């Protein structure tokens, strides 16, 4: 399954609104997408699952995607993390 490690670099981490953006982005793809922090792996399309990872700034998470649009999904999600979820200029 294609996967990518991403650093949570925005000040507030994967807080509620960032989790909302991640699940919204993931939900645009048909692929199954998962996010893992340490030993906890959850569906990246589930907002409560993502939020309960409690991934703060400086955390590295792994995103996995499986399906026809997996690579595109990983690119979009990477762009979201790189953009700090649109929270910091």
């Amino acid at each position, binding site marked *: 399954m294609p996967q990518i490690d991403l650093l949570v670099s925005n000040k507030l981490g994967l807080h*509620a*609104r960032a*989790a*909302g*953006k991640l*699940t*919204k982005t993931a*939900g645009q793809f048909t692929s*199954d997408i998962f996010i*893992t922090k*340490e*030993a*906890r*792996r*959850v*569906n990246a*399309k*589930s*907002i*409560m*699952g993502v939020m*309960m990872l409690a991934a703060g700034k400086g955390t590295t998470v*792994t995103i996995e995607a499986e399906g026809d649009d997996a690579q595109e999904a990983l690119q979009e999600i990477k762009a979201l993390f790189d953009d700090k979820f649109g929270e910091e200029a």
Partner: protein
Amino acid sequence: MAKERMTPAEQSPKPSCTTAVVIAVMAHAPLASALKEVAEHVFGESVDITAIDVLPGACAADSTGALVTRLSGLDRGAGVLLLTDLPGASPANICATSASALLNKTIGCTVITGVNVSMLLRVLNYRHQSLDELAQQAIEGGRQTIARLT
């Protein structure tokens, strides 16, 4: 990589119902509208839910008719999920009598008590599921975030 087993409820929110269930929150003022505001903050856009704040003194006998009329007008054929706060309190009593009245009009209605932020977010996340599935999501979502943090 270590993997944690997901419950069925945590699987992808794939639509199982083409017509969306009407979601309404009815709670002691200002909780319903506050919950809607939180959901809009989290999702960064307006959310399609009906928030009804119940003011002190409201009772089922006086309020049910207006609520049933309102929800009947919103129903798209998939039914109504009513989320309320305290079992036995006026908002929940109004929901219960309204649900009975809606069922008499052959509109499916399920009332879930104990509404909180995680319940609402979970339901919105899976909002294209059927009424029965959404009711289960609401219960699981509401319980999911109750934990001892420290």
